[in-house]
């Protein structure tokens, strides 16, 4: 037997030629293992992301083989690097163009909270303008940390209910950012 780990099946009823589970678990499994990230790399964390995508750490083992630079085709917005106040409207436009379901990962200290740059020109955390799902601390975070953040996103994606995006809590969250 090979020692390659494959993704485990969700709980369900298995038989000869069929597998019965609930729809949201099947959909969650499919989505989590084929996320299309949008690498919004602005500075040093972007270089660590390049190292994560390269052959040594290889993010595509987790299904993120196809990077999408177009927000219309992406699932996961990975914001890597400092976002200055000049860049903030651009980031918001990119987020608004993404179609549901979409998740946001703030990679690095600068995207999470402004990092070491507590200045007049740096946005102190992207969660001032868009909702964030996972924060990966570090300056820059090691590729293992970025992969850990990605695995947290995968957990979120796997366990998300299909009705979550229509729920009033989610609508309230988006409204607090001024997003319809």
């Amino acid at each position, binding site marked *: 037997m090979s020692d390659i780990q494959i993704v485990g099946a969700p709980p369900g009823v298995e038989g000869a030629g069929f597998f019965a589970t609930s729809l949201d678990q099947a959909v969650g499994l499919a989505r989590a293992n084929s996320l299309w990230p949008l690498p919004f790399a602005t500075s040093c964390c972007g270089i660590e992301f390049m190292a994560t995508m390269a052959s040594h750490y290889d993010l595509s083992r987790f299904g993120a083989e196809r990077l999408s630079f177009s927000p219309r085709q992406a699932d996961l917005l990975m914001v890597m690097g400092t976002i200055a106040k000049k860049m903030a409207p651009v980031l918001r436009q990119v987020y608004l163009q993404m179609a549901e379901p979409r998740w946001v990962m703030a990679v690095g200290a600068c995207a999470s909270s402004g990092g070491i740059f507590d200045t007049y020109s740096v946005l*102190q955390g992207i969660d001032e303008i868009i909702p964030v799902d996972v924060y990966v601390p570090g300056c820059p975070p090691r590729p293992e940390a970025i992969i850990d953040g990605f695995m947290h996103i995968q957990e979120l994606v796997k366990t998300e209910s299909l009705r979550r995006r229509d729920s009033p809590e989610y609508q309230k969250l988006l409204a607090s950012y001024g997003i319809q």
Partner: protein
Amino acid sequence: MSKITNEELLNSINSKFEGKITVVGEPFGMLTIETGTDGIIELLSYLKNDPVLQFIYLTDITAVHYPEQEKAIGVLYHLHSLVNNVRIRIKVFIDAVDCHIPTATVLWNGANWMERETYDLFGVIFDGHPDLRRILNVDDMTAFPMRKEFPLEDPNRVDKKDYFFGR
């Protein structure tokens, strides 16, 4: 190391600009002279076009703000003569409120963005610059951030609790 000494350089400059420049010093071997806004372009063009000196490389243009001085903003030019391997620093002090100085883009195209950065950060207006607008900060910013009175941190932050920062 360098083919002409600072003394020869100073003599060469003084032969044409005697009285219009003052020597500030030679910190760490780099001759530093000071001049006024009326003679700066002539001085730069003499340094660039003279066949012996050949300061054809403009290393940098920047500025310093000394708020206690009467002429508060000093515009700095660093030039480099590649053939002779010698560098020179030229300072021009201008008033902080009425800060105009002629542009060096007539001599070097590379001065374009260097002067835009100096305008953006200090408010120095370069007369004759083809496109003097902000380059690093947001376009609708009104203040000049590198001046000493401008604060480092964003004063409009609401989430920073002074208690935790010892204020």
